[in-house]
């Protein structure tokens, strides 16, 4: 494995060419694809505004926070931009178990020539800071407060990072980039959908230069993504089927927004549904297994009604049947 330490983006490419966006902007691109560069997903659909925000992050060293409901593809969006720039990427999921020491590093005991010695093992933050790497903090709003303060230091653009127990000061690589994704805009769990998220300290929020919001994609794009993931539906009939599946998902999202449902169908669930449909060859059964069984029992009759609207077919659901028996 070659170390990235001395690599850097060597040329500029027009955004128009790479992302088909109608603006005059050049972005720095790496010559070689390191193993940390994510794979390109050719079926991925970029959201123009979010793409621009991310590109600003890469080009102008802005700190970018992406916010959106689960399954809107926030992290993937950053990764796919990075993939096209050949920019190495590291994702860290800030769930409640990541501790400050995991990020910064800790002394560990290792065996060397038969003797126990302690050695400092660098955490992911100092490692990434020294290299031209895009560091992505997923679930940023679920991080523990002690972790947040570690991040706060590197959020400053030229923030030097001090390893206290090592007496070391790390100056970030000029091509180090920082991104984060979050389900909430730092306000904590308001809808009741995201337990475990925290209110983000205002000082933290202030340090993000760009906050972009990613909503669900327009329906044609969403259909295209699912067709891309499950190529069997890549024809007219498949388009019609997936269009109806997306319609069910849209109704669940509207139902969630109105407070009638406590779960909603993310693109991830849609893809799972399409894949399960391929396995079982039964749209209703696949729907039950991929989404309906995750719903609260009291909400299932409503979901069954959504299904009826989009598929003109009754979902065999005991409670729904009780209602129809007039």
């Amino acid at each position, binding site marked *: 494995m070659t170390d990235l330490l001395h690599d850097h983006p060597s040329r500029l490419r027009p955004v128009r060419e790479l992302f088909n966006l109608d603006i005059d902007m050049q972005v720095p691109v790496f010559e070689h694809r390191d193993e940390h560069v994510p794979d390109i997903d050719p079926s991925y659909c970029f959201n123009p505004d979010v793409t621009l925000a991310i590109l600003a992050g890469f080009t102008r060293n802005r700190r970018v926070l992406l916010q959106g409901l689960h399954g809107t593809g926030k992290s993937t969006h950053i990764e796919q931009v990075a993939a096209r720039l050949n920019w190495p990427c590291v994702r860290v999921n800030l769930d409640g178990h990541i*501790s400050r*020491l995991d990020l910064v590093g*800790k002394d560990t*005991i290792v065996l060397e020539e038969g003797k*126990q010695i302690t050695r400092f093992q660098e955490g992911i933050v100092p490692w990434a800071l020294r290299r031209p790497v895009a560091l992505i903090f997923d679930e940023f709003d679920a991080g523990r407060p002690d972790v947040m303060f570690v991040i706060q230091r590197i959020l400053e653009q030229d923030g030097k990072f001090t390893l206290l127990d090592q007496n070391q000061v790390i100056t970030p690589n000029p091509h180090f980039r920082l991104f984060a994704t979050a389900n909430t805009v730092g306000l904590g*769990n308001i809808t*009741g959908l995201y*337990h*475990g998220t925290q209110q983000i300290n205002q000082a933290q929020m202030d340090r993000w230069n760009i906050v972009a919001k990613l909503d669900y994609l327009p329906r044609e794009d969403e259909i295209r993504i699912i067709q891309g993931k499950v190529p069997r539906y890549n024809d007219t009939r498949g388009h019609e089927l997936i*269009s*109806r599946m*997306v*319609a069910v998902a849209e*109704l*669940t999202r*509207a*139902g969630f*927004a*109105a*407070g*009638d449902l*406590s779960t909603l169908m993310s693109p991830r669930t849609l893809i799972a549904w399409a894949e399960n449909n391929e396995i079982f060859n039964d749209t209703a059964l696949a729907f039950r297994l991929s989404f309906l069984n995750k719903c609260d*029992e*009291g909400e299932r*009759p*409503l979901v069954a*009604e*959504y*299904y*009826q*609207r*989009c*598929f*003109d*077919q009754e979902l065999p659901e005991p409670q729904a049947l009780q*209602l*129809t028996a*007039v």
Partner: protein
Amino acid sequence: MAAPTDNTPNAAAEARRQQRLEELCAALIRAQSAQAEVRYRGHRLEWRGKAYPLRAPHLQLDAQQDDWGSCRGVADAIALRLRHHDPELHRHWLPTPPVARLVFELLEQLRVESLVPAHHPGSRRNLHYRFSAWSNRFLASGQTESHLGLLLFTLSMMSWVQLGGGPIDEGTEHLIESTRMFLLREIGQPFGRIRRCREDQAAFAEQALAIALSVNELVADLQQQLAGNEQDQDALEEVGNGFGLLLDFDGDGDQAGSQAGGASPRNSDGEAAYRIFTGRYDKEWQAARKVRPELLERLRRQLDQRIREQGLNLNGLTKKLRRLLARPHQDGWRFGEEEGRLDGRRLSTLVTSHADRRVFKQPREEWRANAAVTILVDNSGSMRPHMEHIAMLIDLLVQGLERTGARTEVLGFTTGHWNGGQPLKDWQRRGWPANPGRLNERCHLVYKNSDTPWRRARRSLAALLKSDLFREGLDGEALLWAEQRLLAEHVNERILLVISDGCPMDTATRQSNADDILDAHLMAVADRIDRDPRIRLCALGVGLDLSRYYRHNQLLDLEHSPDNRIFDEILALITRAMRG
């Protein structure tokens, strides 16, 4: 005190079914139209707090005759109207003559229905089903036998087909053939254009208006010809009925000012306008003090016995309540961790065995409810037969809530006397001044306050079974009282759960004031609390639909002993209220 309603078990089951269907329809409309402020209140549809008029004839449902398929169709039709219809623009074009209005409304409704998206084939079928059901019913009623009936019916069917509705069966085709030819001669030109401009409301309205005015003229001519003929006059009226009395445009919800469920204003004016003749005799009692200790002991044993027999699952209930209400709190420390903050008490371990890393502590998270729940029970006379079941429900709810860490309060309300007490006498002595306001003694009962744990309030809760305290009810004032007590709690979440079996009732007050003084007050208070983000208000109706008063309500079936399902319904209600 309940309004005179049919309280047989079948009626209660039917009312519950009706409520569930309405809820489902409202939820469907909300999802399909992406409008969150759609709900049923007292069986009438409301949009943004105002009655939503259903002016097209096929949207009028008959609860007795129409099936679930028709309900679905109507829900889809309303959702499409909310989605594709601009009320402002509509009002601009709306003609004045009643018949022209009717035609114009019908065309507009069929226009929005024609915009059902291709990926909603089920909605398309439901709309088709509903329109066919309506037209069959109209045919069967024999109203097409009059000239006017046939004319309007033919126009409806033609427009439906023209706007992509679907094929008409042969018999109907035959029936309307000649009228259709006649109509086409009169309205042919604009009629030919409506399909093309159905996606543009303004362009469509122009054509629809031309059609509506032509038809209005035709009908006026027809009426003149038939002026002398009494039989035909009756037929005209009957057709009006068949079209759902749509010629009467009162209660126009697109225009501001209409109110659902009666003449009273539901805003804070209703609350401000409410008067109390005298509050001198009002009482607030600790319920346990009103019952002899021996009797209370016996009632408690009776309640315990009933709860044991019922096999209600308190642990299950607690678990569900915890899922609903509990939030993570930092509570103490976890010791012996491999990372975290250094634990001073384990420093010696660090020295004696430095390979042992379990010398840290970490903050411990515990899930606890930071909530206060007030249960407000209607202690009106009509609640007596249900009190045993309600006491069981309350007892278990209080226990379950307490285990999640929530504070609970159980309150009751009734009046001091039947038909007015001292205040009524005072009023009479003062010479019967007009509009005196409330004329009975208000009586509030505290069964359990939030500082008393369930263990100590056990006996007091049994006083719920001593129903000879139950008289009439002043719901609005009770709600205010409970609200004040609840707001004094220092918690994050406040839930007010009302259990009642009817509208507020105090005979003396009703007889000497405007009929709906108590109703209007309750509506105004409930409406205000409902909009207050600090309190979640919800209501359980015992055999009565409370949707007129409370936005979040649930009909309870207490004909059978409560089982675990009832708790699921209550939890679902609270969940809805908490989602807002």
